[in-house]
């Protein structure tokens, strides 16, 4: 299976042909899958594809010339609505582009549309979108994972070549695991958040998603970099695509988190163990370790995320974000009305809990304590990743069926068991597929030290060789 990167390298990528084929799939499957909230106009996209083809023929292609990219709908685009999956923003079209969107456009990418997502990225299954749930192309009765549900699904049925997601507690990696795609949650500060509609600022990063490790790395190269207009952006080492190659297993040290394994389903553990054993057979140094703070990561993560969410979502009042449909006698009544009507149930739940953990008298017991535990988690993870790639199943289960978990928040939040750790610690984490079964795909998660993206990609390339799951797709 050739990757987009290879096709671009060899000059085999024909934007017009790629676009026409993708458009045909979109026409055929999109109605069922519901991966997009907004798709740009066919004619406009066709013109862009033709221009890209011309540029390739004239020998001046840019890094992503004519490549079809889907962008999660919480990333601002000035020419397409940006809803964050919420009715609150159903009329909102930003007056500016996100930093990553500017980078995509400069690199010659074609942005096909804006992908479906859990409202304000709050969800792990994609079912909390105000625009209806996305279905998993591998099994339409199952969820594609969230919150970057549409980006995962669009890649899985080949509506696009690459996709952008955002990851606050696993929102890139869970859809990756459930749709057998690859996704990276970058080191905190590696990708500018400017233009990303915030859910929990201190935890989230925009990240690349694709059907192969090398394509994920390619998109990462385009979107990463220092942005002086994001105060949390950091000058990192960058990445050289030419240098990437499958890691030498004999020099590889893997640390498997026992606690995550113990909490995972049998089939998931089986698929995971097969890969780990092959790595070990090839000479990797595999260690089963305990992450002592594992039992605290979920409550810590949810307290911090909800506190920041309550704060970030305060701005959505009756002022400029309502579509003009709700008019109440006073500003205060209008506020209450707009926020009650236009936020979904899960969003309101998280705002309420966020307000609670920040309230006078509770702040110390919840929010402040959580920030302290977070430092503990970070220190432990930094210690482990100093000389080890941390490995675990990405999700403790295979993709749940639609409706299976949405009514029980705790079982829903438990899906993030393995993923939130990387967000709390700020370290990079890569998801890639290791199995596709009748119960849906299974993914592996690799975590490295800050700025260890290159190690992750190289390890990912090695695992791809072992599993043969490069460029797989459904439908």
């Amino acid at each position, binding site marked *: 299976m050739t990757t987009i990167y290879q096709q671009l390298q060899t000059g085999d990528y024909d934007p017009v042909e790629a676009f026409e084929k993708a458009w045909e799939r979109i026409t055929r499957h999109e109605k069922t899958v519901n991966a997009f909230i907004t798709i740009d106009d066919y004619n406009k996209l066709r013109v862009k594809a033709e221009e890209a083809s011309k540029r390739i023929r004239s020998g001046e292609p840019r890094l992503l010339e004519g490549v079809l990219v889907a962008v999660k709908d919480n990333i601002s685009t000035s020419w397409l609505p940006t809803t964050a999956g919420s009715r609150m923003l159903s009329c909102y079209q930003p007056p500016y582009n996100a930093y990553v969107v500017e980078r995509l456009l400069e690199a010659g990418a074609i942005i096909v549309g804006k992908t479906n997502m859990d409202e304000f990225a709050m969800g792990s299954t994609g079912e909390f979108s105000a625009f209806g749930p996305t279905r998993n192309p591998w099994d339409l009765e199952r969820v594609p994972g969230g919150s970057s549900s549409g980006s995962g699904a669009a890649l899985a049925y080949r509506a696009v070549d690459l996709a952008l997601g955002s990851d606050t507690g696993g929102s890139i990696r869970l859809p990756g695991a459930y749709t057998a795609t690859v996704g990276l949650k970058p080191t905190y500060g590696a990708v500018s958040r400017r*233009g990303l509609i915030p859910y929990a600022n201190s935890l989230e990063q925009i990240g690349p998603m694709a059907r192969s490790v090398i394509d994920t790395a390619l998109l990462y190269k385009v979107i990463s970099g220092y942005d002086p207009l994001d105060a949390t952006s950091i000058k990192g080492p960058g990445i050289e695509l030419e240098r990437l190659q499958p890691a030498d297993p004999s020099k590889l040290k893997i640390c498997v988190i026992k606690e995550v394994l113990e909490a995972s389903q049998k089939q998931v553990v089986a698929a995971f163990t097969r890969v780990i054993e092959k790595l070990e057979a090839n000479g990797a140094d595999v260690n089963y370790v305990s992450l002592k703070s594992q039992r605290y990561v979920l409550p810590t993560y949810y307290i911090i995320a909800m506190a920041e969410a309550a704060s970030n979502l305060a*701005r959505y009042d009756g*002022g400029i974000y309502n579509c003009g449909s709700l008019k109440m006698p006073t500003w205060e009544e209008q506020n209450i009305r707009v926020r009650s009507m236009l936020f979904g149930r899960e969003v309101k739940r998280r705002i309420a809990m966020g307000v609670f953990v*920040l309230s006078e008298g509770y702040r110390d017991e919840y929010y402040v304590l959580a920030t302290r535990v977070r430092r503990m988690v970070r220190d432990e993870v930094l210690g482990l990743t100093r000389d080890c790639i941390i490995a675990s199943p990405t999700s403790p289960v295979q993709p749940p069926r639609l409706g299976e978990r949405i009514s029980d928040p705790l079982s829903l939040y438990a899906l993030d068991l393995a993923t939130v750790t990387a967000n709390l610690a700020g370290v990079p984490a890569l998801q890639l597929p290791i199995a596709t079964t009748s119960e849906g795909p299974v993914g592996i998660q690799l975590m490295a030290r800050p700025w260890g993206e290159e190690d992750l990609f190289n390890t990912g390339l090695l695992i791809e060789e072992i599993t043969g799951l490069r460029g797989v797709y459904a439908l």
Partner: protein
Amino acid sequence: MKMKIGLEVHVQLTRAGTKLFCGCDSDYRVYATNENVCPVCLGLPGALPVPSKKAVILALAAAMIFNCRIPDAIVFTRKHYFYPDLPKNYQITQYEKAGGAPVCLGGEFEYLDPDTWEWRKVRIRRLNLEEDPGRSVYPEGSIVTSRHVLVDYNRSGVPLLEIVTEPDIPSPRAARAFVEYLLLSLEYIGAVNPRLEGAFRVDANISLEGGERVEIKNIGSTYEVEKALLYEYKRQKLLLENGGQVKRETRHWDAVRRVTKPLRHKEEEEEYLYMPDPDLPPVLTRPLISEAKERLVTLPRHVFEWMTSKGVSREVAWSIVQVQHAAQLYKEALTSGTDPRLLARFIGVDYKGALKDLQKDVHDPGNWPEPAVFRKLVEYVQTGAYPLEAITGIVIPKLAVNPQVNLESILPEKASNVEEVIRIVIKENRKAVNDYLSGRRKALDYLVGQVIRKVGKKAIDPRTVRELLIKILTGERERRERNS
């Protein structure tokens, strides 16, 4: 009755150049409604704040004026409340108790009380750097009654320094002196032009012995600070003397009716959900300290004490210090041979007075001549080339009209000539002189006219002639009285 006054002063850093977290202009007054805005200060989703280095440096310089303990890193905090003019429904500020770190962790400030010429000490509780909200207009009354609210976000995000004092101020008049000296100090470090409309606002706390603390909100000028506190002092005193109780409350100063009115009862702490802003990593202060220090080279107190040490009276020195450009001019004009007192008088009394007579802005550097001009004027008087009266009565008023004029062109006839002419006129007009001396004042006008006619078209100020005539004739009268 003894009272305690504490102040909370909000000063816009109008000279920071940009807003606190974006590139929009810190002086929004020249813009049409909602023209000085961008995604950041409109609080649009995904827009990110980046602290302005200049604003932080100005805040640090202010903290240094107040002899503050400055933390190694400052941390911005989100303070949440729903309000139409607050686009994010939270304000980015600094609050120590919720994981934030303000630019000042307590300090001390001395201000000049020009009534007594004493330097009075006030403890500074804290100093916050925060963003100003937008401005709301309720076209149909108040926030409660109006069906619409119009909001202008031009001001949204302007850097605001909140200065909170301990209740160390002894009187309404001292409160005014404090605010005036505070603003002057902040002007000297290049932080603010306090004369811009809305550049500062004051909230004042006042309590009398045996009464609760009352807060007066939103006072817009230093004059009103004194008036509002005086009103509140009298109101509370009357209440207490009649056996009443002063309850803890917040009142509003009605500048038109000149009374304070109840606003709301402060029964409990409001819930602001304070949280460190996750978009803003701590700002390290050490690398900025030296740049902040450079702004403290000249402070009003330095200039004032330096001038008085040269023999300049406190009144004149204070008059100069109050106008930053005048203080600068004074320093540049003073050389080893120049009489410091005479120079101070010309700048701080005569020239400043002449500008005020002409209703010209004393703070506009364009309304002042070059330092060399003042040095020359002092020299004229010191060498006897012109009498003091000629400079103060003729030259300075003309200079104030056009400060860039060539000095030579407005110099009067040498004073000795004028005096000679006057003596001749007195000799030639004995009758008019006698009339004047016997009390007929109109005769003086006639004599002035005669002098001016004799001098001819040469520029001369009738006031000077009149003064000189009076001086000479008064001498004449005294001589006659002695003789009789």
